[in-house]
């Protein structure tokens, strides 16, 4: 089954408005056989929650996860703006 435009909008609103997720930075890409979720989140658990939520809401559609977890390493260098 393919997700239509209304479905795509539902996914985007679900991710932002679901209290357990509250993610506005996830991009939803519709493909012929799946939807791809792209973006960057703070923890692996949040990534997994997003995939679980969308898979539960749209059980007939394959969900492909391309969500990365941001690292919190110190910067290697500084940018000179003077």
């Amino acid at each position, binding site marked *: 089954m393919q997700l239509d435009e209304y479905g795509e909008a539902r996914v985007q609103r679900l991710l932002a408005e679901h209290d357990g997720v509250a993610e506005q*930075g996830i991009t939803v890409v519709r493909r012929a056989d799946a939807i791809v979720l792209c973006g960057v989140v*703070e*923890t692996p658990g949040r990534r997994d929650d997003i995939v679980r939520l969308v898979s539960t809401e749209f059980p007939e559609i394959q969900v492909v996860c391309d969500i990365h977890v941001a690292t919190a390493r*110190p910067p290697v260098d500084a940018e000179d703006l003077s």
Partner: protein
Amino acid sequence: MTGQIRVAAVGDVHLDADALGRFRPALADLGERADVLLLAGDLTRHGTVAEAECVAREFGDLPVPVIAVLGNHDHHSDDAAQVTRVLQRAGITVLEGDTVEIDTPAGRLGVAGVKGFGGGFAGRCASAFGEPEMKAFVRTTCDSADRLSAALGKLTCDVRVALTHYSPVSDTLAGEPPEIYPFLGSYLLAEAIDAHPTALAVHGHAHAGTERGRTPGGVPVRNVAHPVIRQAYSIFNVG
């Protein structure tokens, strides 16, 4: 005075108990690397007091001054005043239309901050016309930009920095769908920044955007949203 002022900055850290402690190791030597840390809003997920307590633990008690603005997520629970108090109790300065000045070895740094709001950019921006809801939307941004301009104008320091959550320019939104630019920032913030001799403008909010931009007046703009910079913070040498 010698050298440059070192400004560390990050935004959109979206802290909650599950992410507590992620930034702390990278902050251990912050005092040797920067003179100040700016937090560009969206410090929490839902704007709850419990999440603000996480921010206080993560970014409190650091060897440099920490200066923040709130973001839209920090307003979600309609408790921004209490979120602000929690941060302030941890020694974090929270700006909304006001300023703070800091003496550094390289000179006196002034930061003016507002959350900002949307509305879009020249040629594709909203106008205060029509329904009350539309006028209220645009006037919210106008008021925020006016507060930012007034705050920048009050500063008498060597180096001025503007801190917002919403973007003042479209440059740093590249990568976001153009259709949502009006919800990511407003040119009115850039106009306020360009009205004063500003060395740097820092913002967050645009997770899929890019790091570097410039106002029409030539002020460097940096999007420091954590999903964009993908490190604990960035450092900018100014002045």
